[in-house]
């Protein structure tokens, strides 16, 4: 049999290329109504009064008073209401739905709804800490006390919009008393569980199905639960099929984004010019509700030494509440912010000490057996040395970095090193998710994969089938893997955190082995597997001590740029990447993740600007929130090195997020190399470069 990495044609490409794939907005149910959201036009205010005009027959409003259960969207931290009740905390917060047959009539009704507010003073500054985490390793106090020199830098990262090309959407109907929702979602069971709380419903009264998903990147992790809750309340009230689809402007204004972050780094340097201690203090802006922000912060803090081992560290971070749109999950989940700070800082330390950054970095590069930032252990082989060597060869890094240091070349090359913890942080997998997978063999010997994992473009329809096909030695078309439907599949957990192949795929592989042993032609057989944490993994959630992740994927990104000396426009010249994802289940699919991830990461670093002004996101559409186009895409070369992880299927680890997290520091370092100024902020826009050129 062929090596599992050798690529096959993706099983879902044909329907997508011929235009017949059904995304949520393509679904029609007869008698279907449309819903549109009435939103707060104030940043922070008390709702004094709402006057609804007389509604034409067949039109309805749906608000908090229609909720049979709790007015809360349940996801990790339950502090977001489904519909605002007495107060609004951000511009665009949902207050009610207007539902009816004709979209124009709905728009007309909405424009005639009068809401009387009593405005209050909003908070935009980082003063209201909702969560604080703090942990230490070694004795950083001593290191700082004995330091010969202390180096301090502040780093800042902006918003990033997922900008999945398909905006958010959900459609629902009542089937035999059951609320059935189909949406563009990453996590069918998150949606189901949230809806149950809002409707005060039993398990068999809610059903959630996945439509074909037009990109997600974390943006469809928790946000769809809000839409689903709103829609479910409307369905219970109106009892007719309803569709709720966002237009791009609405999507950009109100959906979750990557948290802006501020990171203060300090290094204690001893008499031998060694980094004796390091402190990192991070702040992330959650917006108006906490939601997943604590988990995002945790991942950021754990990444505070990046791909390096520093003996003595102290790490501290806060989640701040502000009266702005709630931020949430986005590919990388806190790591991109921190890895930007770490990679810049180690270069800035080297420059301050006047040593070659490469030398300094190699000295602290993590090795197998080292303690992680949380006193866990890097148990598996780390092959970064080979990866770095390969990436430098591919890009001619050494020669270029020297040549471009010369004043006035306006060319630059930058290299980032990074790791990404695979799966949920800490004890999430073992304590909260407890993933369950099933395989069902029919009398026709076809095997159905029953999992809740969603293909949002990352190719798991294909890779999951490949895993089963290889183990059972049966062709791909003998395997069925339909889009998840909570009435049919067990809860194998959400499609997030680079866990799908490693954790869910690992369970699928184990189930397939079980099935292989029990296989009898023509007989119906069902097998299942539940996640068990390896015994040696220990995690103290309160003190951040132990193994934060079961395994890590590693990467090296090199980006080359040219900066226009007149306009300071940055042009990408080339991108080279080397990754250790354990083992690729399908090489071309991983390469596709690599191309897309790095461009999204690099875009975050130099191009994608999003701001809020007085609590409102200024950017409205793809016309003013600019993402890379073909015109920005340089030649890209990716190389994978196998380093199989014993517990992953065929040795596979996570790949989805890894490919994004190193992009921003690589491009920022390239720009730093080109302009000979220290970059401390992303995105590195022409305006920022101009500021640096003027002020140093």
């Amino acid at each position: 049999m062929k090596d599992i990495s050798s690529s096959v044609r993706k099983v879902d490409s044909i329907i997508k290329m011929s235009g017949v794939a059904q995304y949520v907005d393509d679904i029609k149910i007869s008698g279907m109504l449309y819903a549109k959201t009435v939103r707060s036009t104030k940043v922070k205010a008390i709702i004094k009064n709402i006057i609804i005009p007389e509604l034409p027959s067949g039109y309805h409003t749906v608000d908090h008073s229609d909720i049979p259960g709790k007015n809360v969207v349940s996801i990790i931290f339950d502090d977001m209401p489904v519909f605002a009740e007495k107060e609004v905390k951000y511009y665009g917060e949902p207050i009610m739905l207007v539902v009816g047959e004709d979209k124009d009539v709905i728009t007309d009704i909405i424009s005639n709804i009068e809401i009387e507010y009593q405005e209050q003073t909003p908070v935009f500054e980082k003063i209201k800490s909702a969560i604080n985490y703090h942990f230490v390793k070694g004795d950083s106090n001593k290191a700082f006390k004995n330091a010969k020199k202390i180096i301090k830098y502040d780093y800042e990262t902006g918003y990033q919009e997922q900008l999945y090309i398909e905006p958010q959407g959900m459609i629902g109907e009542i089937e035999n008393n059951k609320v059935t929702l189909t949406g563009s979602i990453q996590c069918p069971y998150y949606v189901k569980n949230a809806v149950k709380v809002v409707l005060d419903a039993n398990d068999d009264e809610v059903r959630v199905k996945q439509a074909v998903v037009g990109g997600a990147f974390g943006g469809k992790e928790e946000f769809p639960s809000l839409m689903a809750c709103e829609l479910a309340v409307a369905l219970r009230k109106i009892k007719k099929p309803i569709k709720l689809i966002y237009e791009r402007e609405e999507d950009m204004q109100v959906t979750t984004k990557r948290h802006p972050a501020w990171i203060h780094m300090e290094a204690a340097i001893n008499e031998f010019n060694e980094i004796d201690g390091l402190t990192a203090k991070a702040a992330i802006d959650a917006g108006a509700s906490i939601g997943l922000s604590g988990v995002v912060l945790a991942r950021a803090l754990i990444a505070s030494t990046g791909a390096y081992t520093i003996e003595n560290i102290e790490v501290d971070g806060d989640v701040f509440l502000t009266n702005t749109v709630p931020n949430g999950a986005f590919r990388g989940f806190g790591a991109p912010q921190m890895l930007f700070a770490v990679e810049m800082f180690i270069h800035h330390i080297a420059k301050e000490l006047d040593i070659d950054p490469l030398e300094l970095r190699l000295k602290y590069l993590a090795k197998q057996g080292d303690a992680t930032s949380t006193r866990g252990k890097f148990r598996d082989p780390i092959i970064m040395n080979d990866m770095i060597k390969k990436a430098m060869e591919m890009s001619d890094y050494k020669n270029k970095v020297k040549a471009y240091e010369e004043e006035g070349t306006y060319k630059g090359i930058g290299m980032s090193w990074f790791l990404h913890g695979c799966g949920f942080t800490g004890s999430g997998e073992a304590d909260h998710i407890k993933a369950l997978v099933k395989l069902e063999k029919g009398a026709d010997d076809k095997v159905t994969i029953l999992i809740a994992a969603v293909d949002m473009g990352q190719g798991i329809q294909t890779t999951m089938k490949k895993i089963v096909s290889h183990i059972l030695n049966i062709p791909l078309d003998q395997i069925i893997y339909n889009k998840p439907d909570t009435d049919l599949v067990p809860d194998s957990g959400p499609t997030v955190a680079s866990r799908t192949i490693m954790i869910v795929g690992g369970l699928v592989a184990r189930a397939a082995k079980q099935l292989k042993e029990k296989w009898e032609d023509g007989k119906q057989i069902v097998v299942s597997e539940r996640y068990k944490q390896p015994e040696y993994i220990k995690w103290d959630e309160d003190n951040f001590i132990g193994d934060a992740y079961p395994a890590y994927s590693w990467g090296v990104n090199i980006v080359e740029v040219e900066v226009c000396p007149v306009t300071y426009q940055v042009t990408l010249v080339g991108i080279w990447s080397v990754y250790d994802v354990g083992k690729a289940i399908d090489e071309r699919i991983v390469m596709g993740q690599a191309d897309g991830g790095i461009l999204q990461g690099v875009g975050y670093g130099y191009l994608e600007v999003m701001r809020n002004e007085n609590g409102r996101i200024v950017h409205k559409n793809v016309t003013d929130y600019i993402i890379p186009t073909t015109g920005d895409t340089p030649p890209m070369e990716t190389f994978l090195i196998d380093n199989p992880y014993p517990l992953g299927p065929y040795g596979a680890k996570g790949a989805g997020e890894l490919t994004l997290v190193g992009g921003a520091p690589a491009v920022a370092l390239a720009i730093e190399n080109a302009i000979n100024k220290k970059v401390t902020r992303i995105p590195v826009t022409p305006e920022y470069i101009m500021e640096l050129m003027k002020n140093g």
Partner: protein
Amino acid sequence: MAKIKFTLNNKQVEIEKSPTARLLDILREDFDFTGVKEGCGEGECGACAVLINDQIVNSCIVPLGTVEGKNIVTIEGFSKTKRHEVLRNAFEEEGAVQCGFCTPGMLIASESLLNKNPHPTDEEIKIGLSGNLCRCTGYNMIIKAVKSASKKGDGLW
């Protein structure tokens, strides 16, 4: 309201609607050609691209009234052609499809490009597809796919 007649995927059609209605909505809702996608609604992402008299146009900014007598091809119509087959194979072989939401527009843009320039360079491909946003693929594999289609489909365009 006005009666508008045009050719849609090789069929004569007629519809009575406001001439200011967006062609995108007409195609999706009245004719069920949902392969035409809405990504931005402002003519900037290319997800809603169709061919009108062989020219690529973003249907979200086309008023219905302007297509009288014209020949419109959506991805559904294009997918029945030999050229689509060649492009389809190339997109599959290069791995150019991820979530697929941009894909119908990308294929229409590729067709339009190859129609004008059957053997484009990488640079020309990038320019030809620069009106189509994709957030998943980083474009690399799409560019390779168009290049490979132009070779494999030699003589078709």
